[in-house]
């Protein structure tokens, strides 16, 4: 059974068709790329997968269960985490707290236990902080733990968003243009990083990305959207040579 199955999903906004009868499957352990020109519906598809938008029709099966109309926090609890195209950190809070907040679902003690400082609550709090620090170490932000998240340079903010998403301990990680604004060096580092965490944390990754070489070099399989429609699906070599893809996308960018 595939980890994620997008089944005939469409999304209309009034007269605008953002996603048009899209179907594909993502296998456990894959790094799956989602590319296409601007406005092709990629982020909308992410929003549907994470519950921020409901599809107009279709299903999204995650581990066999249709999650298409669940609320975002329920989906997060089931193990899907994401980053956002326009970074959505908790800007006024410090870096550590940003990651710590995403540990929310991994504690069980209730409000009362927390207020009274009961041993189990304090223990869980300590563990949460340790885990958060560990994740900061993973993305190289340990030194910035007390800095205000909004004051970080752009690249660091992107890394923080990934650390935050990882704090959920997801099975499926959705990255929305994680390399945006990075120079070629940083892109390579990111690419290696994604491969590393995919193996290390037994993740499945779906990646929206504009930079074609990054996608071709990193992803096991790629889906190409154009005007909401899926126009190609396959491994990088296959997609690169697909006539429709070249015409719609690669031809423009090169």
């Amino acid at each position, binding site marked *: 059974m595939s980890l994620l199955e997008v089944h005939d999903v469409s999304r209309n906004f009034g007269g605008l068709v953002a996603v048009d009868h899209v179907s594909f499957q993502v296998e456990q352990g894959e790094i799956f790329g989602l590319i296409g020109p601007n406005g092709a519906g990629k*982020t909308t598809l992410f*929003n549907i997968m994470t519950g*921020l*938008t409901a599809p107009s029709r279709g299903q999204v099966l995650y581990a066999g269960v249709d999650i298409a109309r669940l609320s975002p926090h329920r989906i997060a609890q089931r193990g899907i985490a994401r980053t*956002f195209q326009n970074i959505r950190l908790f800007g006024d809070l410090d870096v550590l707290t940003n990651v710590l907040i995403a540990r929310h679902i991994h504690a069980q003690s209730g409000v009362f236990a927390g207020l009274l400082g009961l041993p189990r609550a304090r223990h869980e709090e300590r563990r949460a902080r340790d885990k958060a620090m560990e994740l900061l170490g993973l993305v190289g932000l340990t030194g910035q733990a007390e800095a205000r998240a909004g004051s970080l340079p752009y690249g660091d903010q992107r890394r923080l968003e990934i650390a935050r998403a990882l704090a959920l301990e997801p099975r499926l990680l959705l990255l929305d243009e994680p390399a945006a604004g990075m120079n070629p060096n940083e892109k390579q580092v990111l690419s290696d990083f994604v491969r590393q965490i995919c193996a290390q944390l037994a993740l499945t990754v779906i990646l929206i990305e504009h930079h074609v070489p990054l996608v071709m070099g990193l992803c096991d399989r790629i889906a190409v959207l154009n005007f909401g429609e899926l126009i190609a699906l396959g491994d990088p070599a296959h997609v690169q040579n697909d006539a429709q893809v070249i015409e719609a996308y690669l031809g423009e960018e090169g």
Partner: protein
Amino acid sequence: MNATMLAQQILNGLAVGSVYALFALGYTLVFSILRVINFTQGAIFALGAYFTYLFTGSAFGFNGLLANAALPFGLPFPLAALLGGVLAGLVAIGVERIAFKPLRDKGADPLLTLVSSLGMAVVIVNVIQYLVGAEIYSFPASVMAGLPAALTFGPANNPIRIRTVQVIIFGVSMLFVVALTLMVNRTQLGKALRAVAEDATTASLLGINTDQLIQFTFFMSGLLGGIAGVLIGLSVSIAGPYFGISFGLKGLAVLVLGGLGSIPGAVVGGLAIGLAESLVPPDFVAYKEVIAFLFLFVFLLVRPQGLLGRPLTQKV
């Protein structure tokens, strides 16, 4: 309840409703441009009434700093009203400069702007109270000189009577509403307004001076609010500066009922609430005040975009 009474109540409701509509349009104008609720609308409403009262040459009572003050001259009522409205509009511009612009420049949360306008409303209303006290003022009877007290029509044995004042306020409100709608839909200025309402950044890139336009919008919303205040003052009385606050709150109900940002919505909402209030059965007349708030509450829960508004969506 017979047909005559019903007809009279409907007419009364429409008259009051038209003033609600006029007042709510002030909210709508600012909301459609800035996506914030201008809480001072109620205070400006009161100001319009008080200014006009001053311009008719009437004297203030013995409370407050300006006890017994009066202008040495008295203007004919329509002129006084217009002047009062214009002055209210100018105050609205002042409010925009003090409480709105600094926050807009900082890209502040709309809630903060709402709170800031709330503070201004409190200041204005209490300054009025401090200056002229909280007693009830009425426009001098000479205002209606030469006009019949009421108009009657319908069958001779059971005529429908409506106070001339109600006809006047309905007429004036509708006049302003129509003028505003024409302005927004048919003039270049209106087009610029709609552009800014749609997308302020693009509008300014297209050469529209958004800052000036915003000031103008505030002026108009203040003018409408002020005139509404005069009309209520004429039809009922000026019941102390705080009547601006309660009217302001009621106007919010109209705004939400009609749909935030929708001009026809404000008209429909205003008339609807006016009608609903006047059709309250006599036993429950004490609860008349609650009607507007019940509408507000229910609509917020069930249909926040109101009758004619567009649902506010969030871009992810």
